[in-house]
Every structure is written in C-alpha cells, then in structure tokens.
C-alpha cells in the first residue's frame, strides 16, 4: 500500500510551457488499434491466419523462383515434364502480369475477410469501451482518430499487397542473373502495388470503418460489411432490370468495381473507358459518403435524443 508520504514525495508539479507532439497521434491510434486486435484475437484464429499467410508467401517464393529459374529446374529429370506442361499452359508474361495474377485476386479475397474479422473491431471496440471519451480528452483531433484507424486498415492491407510484392521483387532479384534487366522490367511495379494498396485501404477501409462506427459489437459490424458487399452485388442487377443497363448502375457493383480499378492500375490500360469512369465515380461516391458518415459518428459522448 502506498503511504501518504509517498504521494507527497512524488510532488505533484504543475506543467508549464508548450509541449511538442513527439509521435503523431494518428500513428499511436493506428498502432494501438492493431495491437488491440492482435491481443484480443484467439490463439487458434491467429494461428490460422499465420499459417494461411506463410503458405501464401511460400507459394509466392516458390512460384517466382520456379518461373525465373525454369530452365535450370527442367534439368531435374522427374520435374522436367511437369514444368514443360506448366510453361506451355501459360504464355510468357511480363513482371506486372505476374504481380496482378499473384497479388490482386488474393489481396481482394484476404482484404475482404480480414476486414470482416478484424477491421470490424477498429471503432466498435472503442465505442463499446467508451474509449472515444478518453481519446478526445487528449490532444487528439477527429482527423487524427480517423486517420489513425485508416492507418490500422493500411497495416492490414499492406500484409496482402506490399509484403507479397516485396517478396516477389526480392526473390526476383535473387533468382535472376541479369539484375539490371529485372529492375528495368519491374521498377514501376512497387508504385502500382502502392496505388493498389491505397485503393484497397481507402475503399474497404471506409466501408468497414463506417460499419464499425455504427455498431458497438464487432461481429455486427462484420455482418453489416458482408451485407453491404452482398447488397451492392445484387442491387445493381435489380436496378438494371428496372431501368435498363447503364454504366453508372454497373459501377455500383462495389467489389467488382474495385477489382476492375485494380486491374486497370496494374495493366496500365483502360479497356472500357466509359464503364471505368462510372466505376471510379461510384466507388469514390460511396467512399466519400462513408467517410462523411464516420466523421458524424465519432463523437466523444453519444447523445441519445
């Protein structure tokens, strides 16, 4: 038990002067969000994800090595037949195609489920614990809070975009003899992957954070996000049936629009300019509305009228 004199000896001095922020609040909030999720995740669930990612990353390393060293691997007698069949099945593709094939689809799949399982906890847990009141009694602005939460989402999406891309490039550098040629072919890929990472973070992040800000229970937030994805997949069909086909309606297919925008980023070309325009417009509109609604929801005290 601490004695009275102990308190007095600590000296409760008054603070004087200006204090400069050492670490940006949004960084702390984002880090705390991920820390909280990791700490609250059960061992089994954590192991499942770790194993899934280890397998995915291992496959990336193996397939990248195989692709770049295929001629050497063909010298292995029992492997030669399989490799020749594999090579025949896929025409020679550029590095960017390889990134698109091995990152884009898995990233969308993993991001979708990561958002449901973990992203859904980001604001709902704070709301359930009344932590918003504590956050906003510190030198934390709403922008810091929201940006911090997006930073937490960005950390999650980086695991499925930036990390695999870095693995492919690093393995590529190790597995090729002509490093200069490899760099010439792939120098711009990190920029494309970075853009795709931002796309996933902002679009998926805004919807999951909105769902999370609307619910105090994370499983409800996750279910709402799932419901949103299903709704935006089905609703455009109904609209198309009633009003006829239009690119604006097609663009409302949220997940497929994001995938198409991702494909456009990686392929650096536009197949259907009109459709892509409406897809970008619709996704931007939904994201903008979601962010606006989140800012209305992050209040330190919930006022029940």
């Amino acid at each position, binding site marked *: *038990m*601490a004695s009275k004199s102990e308190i007095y000896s600590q000296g*409760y001095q*008054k603070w004087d002067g200006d204090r400069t922020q*050492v670490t940006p609040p949004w960084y*702390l909030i984002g880090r705390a969000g991920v820390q909280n999720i990791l700490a609250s995740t059960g061992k089994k669930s954590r192991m499942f994800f770790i194993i899934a990612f280890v397998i995915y990353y291992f496959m990336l390393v193996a397939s990248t090595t195989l692709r770049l060293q295929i001629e050497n691997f063909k010298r292995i007698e029992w492997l030669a037949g399989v490799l020749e069949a594999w090579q025949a099945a896929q025409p020679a593709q550029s590095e960017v195609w390889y990134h698109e094939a091995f990152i884009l689809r898995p990233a969308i799949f993993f991001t979708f489920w990561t958002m449901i399982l973990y992203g859904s906890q980001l604001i709902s847990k704070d709301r359930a614990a009344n932590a918003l009141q504590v956050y906003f*009694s510190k*030198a934390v602005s709403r922008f810091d809070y929201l940006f911090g939460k997006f930073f937490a989402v960005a950390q999650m999406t980086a695991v499925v975009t930036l990390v695999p891309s870095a693995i492919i490039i690093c393995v590529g550098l190790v597995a090729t003899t002509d490093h200069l040629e490899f760099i010439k072919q792939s120098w711009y890929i990190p920029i494309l992957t970075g853009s795709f990472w931002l796309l996933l973070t902002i679009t998926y992040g805004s919807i999951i954070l909105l769902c999370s800000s609307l619910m105090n229970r994370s499983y409800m937030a996750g279910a709402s996000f799932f419901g949103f994805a299903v709704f935006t997949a089905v609703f455009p069909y109904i609209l198309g049936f009633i009003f006829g086909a239009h690119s604006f309606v097609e663009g409302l297919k949220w997940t497929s629009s994001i995938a198409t925008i991702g494909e456009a980023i990686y392929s650096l070309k536009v197949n259907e300019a009109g459709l892509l325009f409406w897809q970008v417009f619709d996704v931007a509109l939904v994201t903008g509305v979601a962010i606006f609604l989140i800012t209305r929801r992050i209040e330190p005290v919930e006022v029940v009228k």
Partner: protein
Amino acid sequence: MSAYSIEVTNVSKWYGDVSALTEVSLNIEPGILGLLGPNGAGKSTLLKLMSGQLDPSIGEINILGQNYHNNPQLWSKVGLCPEQDSLWEEFSGPGFLSAMLQLQGWGVHDSDRRAAELIGMLDLAKAGRRRVSGYSKGMRQKLRIAQSLAHRPEVLFLDEPMTGLDATSRTLVSDLIIEMGRSGMTVVVSSHILHEVENITKEMVIINQGSLRARGNVYEIRELLTDHPLQLELSVDDPRRFCQAFLGKPHVVKVELVPEDPERVIVFTQHQNQFFQDLPEILEDHDIHIKSIHAEDEDMEAVFKYLVH
C-alpha cells in the same frame, strides 16, 4: 489573462427537446471545487461541457482563457476521468498509461517512466503486466484516474472518482486530489455522494434540475438558507430558563423543548454567529450550565437536502 481557470458563461444544453442545463454561469479558480447534485441533476452534462466532450447549445466555455474549438493543444493541459468504463481492455495497466501519455505528446521513454511512477503511486504495481480486462473494479477506477492526471494537467475533471474504491484506496485518491489542489491545479470533482466531496473540499457548487442552486463554502451556503433556520441541539441543566432567555433575541426564530429528554432543547436561529456571540453572556447571566451542543443541520447533507428538495 483571467484569474479563472474555467469560465462558463450563460451555457445551456438541450438534448433534442430535453433541457439538461439552463443558463449556467460559473467561474472557477485554481483549487478544488466539488460539483454536487442528485442523479440526473445535470452535473455530468456540465462536466462534459467543461471538459469539451460536448458542445454547448448556447453560451461559451473558456478553459485557461482558451476555447476548445480547433485547439487540440488545450487538451494537453486538461485531464478527464470519465464516469464510464473507458479503458483499452487488451493493454496492460502501464502500457495503457504510457499510450495515453504518448497521445498527450510525451516521448516513449518519459511515458514509460511516468506510467511506472503512477502505477506505484496508486498501488497497482501488483497487477504487473496483466491485461486491464483482468482488473478489479477498484483497480480499473484507479487506472482511469491515473490516465487523467498522468500528463500533469492544469485543469482536471473527475467524474465520480471514488466509485468502486475501497476505504484505503479512497483515502489514497483523496490525498492525491488534495495534493493536486494545493499544487495550484484546478480540480473539479463531480459526485452525488456528499461525504466523498466533503472530505476533499469545502468549496462546492450544488446543481439540480439543470441549474446552479448554490456556490461556495458549505457554511456560507448554510447561512444563506434563510428559509431553513439552523437547528442547534443543546443539552443544558435548566432548559426552561434557557428558552426564556433566548426567545426575545431577534436572530432566534424559535426554541423547542424535547419532551423525551428533559435536558434537551433545540434552538432555530437565522444567524449562527450572533447566537454564539450571545451564548456565553446568557449562560453567565442566567447561571445555566451547558453540557453539549450540536448543530443538527449544518453539514453538507442538510444543505444539500434543503437545496435539492
């Protein structure tokens, strides 16, 4: 700069059609101020307004001469211990405090050191690195208090700070609050339990039904309650003579004999000081001996009851 740390000017707050506070004006100087009122009186709303958690519907609130609006730096000088549970369940106690300090602009090393200091000060060291979710109610309350004062704020708002604390912890926290008040901080303590606040400060504001009812020292407030004369219960050897001697005095409203106890008499007076000035002379002139004297309704409980009901 104003001498007041907190300036509340004509503040009203409505939740939809419901009025929670009506035209409250209050200036608070450094020191400890108790904010008292029954449940639903509006004290939590006032505290949330003063601590920037809510915006007033009308009126103005200045803290240290500044407004909260677009002024995150002001938060570095303010601390809030909310009434509701508001901790990061998955963090350890020291980890939580350190993170809170970093949010207030402290460096990692300083935050860790200060967190360890507070954990020791508030007797939470035995929990070690255990997660907050495993803390008892009292430990959680102490951690909430610790996060509010960790960054050494100039203005501190404590909403029901003694909730869930055992007797030893109450003493510990009371001593800490008193020390902070002495050091020149402005501490506003909200509570609906009178003796909790009475142990910490004599300076208080009483609020009920959304408006301020009284402000000041409990004895000063008592003096102002002219509708409720102060009741003094005395035990004297000759109550009848005592009654006769006092009945003519202008400050004495009435004197009652207690049938159950032949030595007891109750004096109702508007001016306590005048009564005590007259008392020695009357006792001497009438040869009355006094055995005991006790103010029946001079305490906070009585003042509160008269003001609130």
